[in-house]
């Protein structure tokens, strides 16, 4: 049965430029410059003010009316970049484009190239416009922009201080003695250092001591990716980055599920072990142990109905994890589905008969919600409170983006994002709220 429906509707999500919130912390010595209008600045301020310090390594090049008619943005952008350099001394600047840049067809690529040369460090354009991307895809755009700093070859000898900055010269050193070609593993996704450490530890125990991650926090230490590389995505929304890696690096991108939840993590580790010819027998036991650890939480979740309205593009892996918890996922709404990168997740969800709605229509979802009567709705920040007032229990989708949810160790944190709202509701009911009537 074909279970993916497309509604081409209007749903509640954040603009992709919001991804600066985690990226500016991930990439060290970076600065994120968003070229846009007052709206973009106001949005970020409103959306992130609670979470981010006023003095952060990102800012806005606010377009003025004269910019709308100017032939090239390079000069004006250059002045802004100069100010950023004076204040922050960044080693890399990401220039994020927005809707207005798209509409005006401003060529930031060319400007960035010029400015990189002028300033002697990388000024990288990334397309994060809200016109055709949603919330988390800003990360895809930024990783894509970083790909040129991913070397094709490992340095032949131990890194010697180079005269020229490395980023100008990689790829031109092929005549140097090459290291013996060996297959390397690169995990892709801007996750926290502690998540990386955990995944590396799991893989080391399974016999893979060296696991690289892209992006590294340091732009000069990005891992090698070439035709010898096996690439495995950690996040489901890195489609442009993966496509370019396939095309330009001819690396093998493993098709697997995402390491979210014990089930996903086990499949993910198995796929990697099989690829590297390693023994997978211990994974089963690890997975079983991970599930045992979750048992008290699982008891809360079993048989519950959960609905995803669609926001952060993590919906399909999360829905798959929930079905493994014997949750009835009544609808997995998601802004966009990349059928190739999500193939394994899609197959599992179809097997389990989950209704998937791409680009859902919020108004229709409201009606369906009345039919489904879900125990929990995972929704964007803008509508959780009204849904609560309507009697639904909600989880903020943004929390899944800001929490550590990958791997076995984090599985408990992941599952708690679902059980906590349910427990809260129960606790309130036990302590006075039954009287209010409407919470029933």
């Amino acid at each position, binding site marked *: 049965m074909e279970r993916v429906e497309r509604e081409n509707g209007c749903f509640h999500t954040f603009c992709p430029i919001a991804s600066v919130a985690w990226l500016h912390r991930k990439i060290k010595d970076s600065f994120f410059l968003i070229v846009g209008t007052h709206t973009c*600045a106001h949005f970020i301020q409103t959306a992130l003010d609670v979470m981010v310090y006023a*003095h952060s390594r990102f800012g*806005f090049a606010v377009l003025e009316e*004269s910019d709308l008619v100017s032939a090239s943005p390079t000069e004006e952008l250059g002045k802004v970049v100069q100010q950023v350099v004076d204040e922050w001394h960044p080693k890399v600047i990401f220039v994020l484009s927005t809707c207005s840049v798209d509409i005006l067809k401003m060529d930031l690529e060319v400007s960035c190239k010029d400015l990189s040369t002028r300033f002697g460090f990388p000024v990288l354009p990334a397309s994060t416009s809200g016109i055709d991307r949603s919330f988390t895809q800003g990360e895809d755009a930024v990783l894509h922009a970083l790909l040129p700093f991913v070397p094709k070859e490992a340095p032949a000898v131990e890194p010697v201080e180079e005269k020229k900055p490395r980023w100008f010269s990689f790829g031109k050193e092929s005549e140097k003695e090459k290291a013996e070609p060996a297959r390397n593993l690169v995990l892709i996704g801007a996750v926290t250092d502690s998540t990386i450490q955990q995944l590396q530890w799991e893989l080391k125990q399974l016999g893979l001591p060296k696991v690289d991650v892209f992006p590294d926090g340091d732009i000069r230490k990005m891992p090698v990716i070439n035709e010898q590389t096996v690439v495995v995505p950690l996040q489901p929304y890195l489609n442009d980055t993966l496509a370019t890696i396939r095309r330009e690096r001819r690396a093998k991108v493993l098709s697997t599920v995402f390491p979210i939840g014990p089930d996903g993590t086990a499949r993910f580790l198995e796929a990697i072990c099989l690829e590297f010819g390693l023994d997978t027998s211990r994974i089963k036991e690890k997975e079983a142990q991970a599930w045992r650890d979750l048992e008290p939480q699982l008891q809360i979740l079993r048989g519950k109905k959960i609905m995803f309205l669609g926001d952060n593009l993590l919906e399909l892996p999360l829905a798959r994890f929930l079905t493994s918890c014997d949750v009835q996922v009544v609808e997995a709404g998601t802004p966009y589905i990349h059928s190739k990168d999500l193939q394994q997740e899609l197959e599992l969800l179809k097997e389990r008969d989950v209704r998937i709605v791409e680009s859902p229509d919020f108004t229709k979802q409201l009606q369906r919600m009345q039919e489904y009567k879900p125990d929990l709705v995972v929704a964007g920040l*803008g509508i959780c409170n009204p849904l609560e007032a309507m009697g639904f229990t909600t989880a903020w989708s943004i929390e899944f983006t800001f929490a550590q949810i990958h791997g076995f160790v984090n599985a408990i944190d992941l599952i708690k994002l679902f059980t906590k709202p349910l427990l809260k509701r129960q606790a309130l009911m036990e302590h006075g709220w039954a009287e209010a009537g409407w919470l029933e």
Partner: protein
Amino acid sequence: MGGSGVAGMKLAYWMYEGTALSGITRVAGSMQKVHTVIHGPQGDGYVNVMYSMLERFHTIPPFTLSTIGRREMAQGSRARLVETVRRVDAQHQPDVIVITPTCSSTLLQEDLLAVARTLGKQTKAKLIVPNVNAFRDLEHRAMDDFLTQIVAEFATEQPKTEQFSVNLIGPSYLGFHQLHDMQEIRSMLESLGVAVNAVIPYGASIKTLQELTKAHLNICLYHEYGQSACELLKEKFGIDYIVATPIGIRLTSQFVKAIGERAGLPVESYIRQNLAPSGTIARFTKSVDSLSALFGKRAVVFGDYSHAVGMTHLLREIGVRVVWAGTYMKTMEKAFQASIGGLADEVFVCDDFQEISHKIRDTHPDIVLGTQMERHSAARFNFPCIVISSPAHILNFPLFPAPVLGYQGMTRMLDTINSTIKLGLEEHLVNMFGEDSPGMGEEDTAQEQVAVTSDMPKAPDKTTAGEGELKWDAEATKALKQVPFFVRGKVQRNTENYARERGYSEVTLEVIYAAKAYFESKSNQGER
């Protein structure tokens, strides 16, 4: 942003004012049976987040996005807009649908008026397209224009109420404590015996707009917006108006008197009663404790026009010195200078967050009254701070009644100041005997050491003479350590500046004492 219009792209970290979109949705979203269709990209639905999170909306905010996506960019967005407006009309059955542009739709040059004109014949709701430039206009300007537009659209001639009545112009969602202010003004007017005919935009319906003309006087509560609507009501219907934000003793008196004069009511006793020795305001201000806690303390004020002016007045009324007062409302510079007059040592207009931040750092105030952004800056430099103006934060949407205006507002401000600023007696003791540190063992001294170094400027301050670090001899270092850590940085900086200016190469006890004498005499002069 204001400014010349010739200059191009401008670096900004944070914005003091919202966009035209946020202004329009503040007006329209505050009203009854008014639905807004936002013509913009998916991400511009963030206005929902503000209502849902800051105002803790319990209903779905009355905003629907007509999404501009790739397809709409290529094929035009009109079809989608028409479909969305029709759907909203059928589903929500509002009296009015506001079709609002965004930066993006403005750049796409979509003619919303033309769409409204053709569609308007088919929809039950009246369609209104705000007459704003969504790309250029800022929040308050858009609010002012849009309020005027809808008042002009709906207000009709009506017989006046028998009793003297007023309209309150201004209260709206997402304003700074505005709904609390509205309650306070209502109860104030009730005490005076003045009836409230209508409030706009908060809670207003089309009927409210139609009946605005029943009132005898319009009261525009915030200088940032609403005056143009009052002006229009005056021209067209002859309704008198005042623009006043009653913060502190003087501005509240003026406000009450202006209303009393027009209503022909005596107000003196109301004012007296609130300032009587038995009242909270007098008891606090005259309390001997506030002689040391407040008198002569150095404050800085920054905010929108109304709150910066009001708070500057209020601070002076309780004996606090205002070193500078600034506003980000660049369009109101002249009026700002005039209203603050001699109340602050320095008065300025600026909308650059960084500049204000640096100014706070260099001023070393005892307390900062600013926006949410100054709160960040103050935290960074370790100064006490109170948020007194938008841009606000979830904390500025308190549940308990928390007005800023009127006597209740002043009482609440006094409480807030009292709990934020370093108290008098406590400060005395600290200054005399140093911080309280139980069992000053080796470890404490070590920690203290850390506090000293982390408090010190990491590198010689570039803004001062900048001739490298000054040496502190042993005795001077010991004396510095005796200074409470929270003022230590300031004392060190002042002493070093003093020493440099006078050509000392080393800081000795002599230099410290001379510097202390110099700065204290200077600050006493300023206080008078």
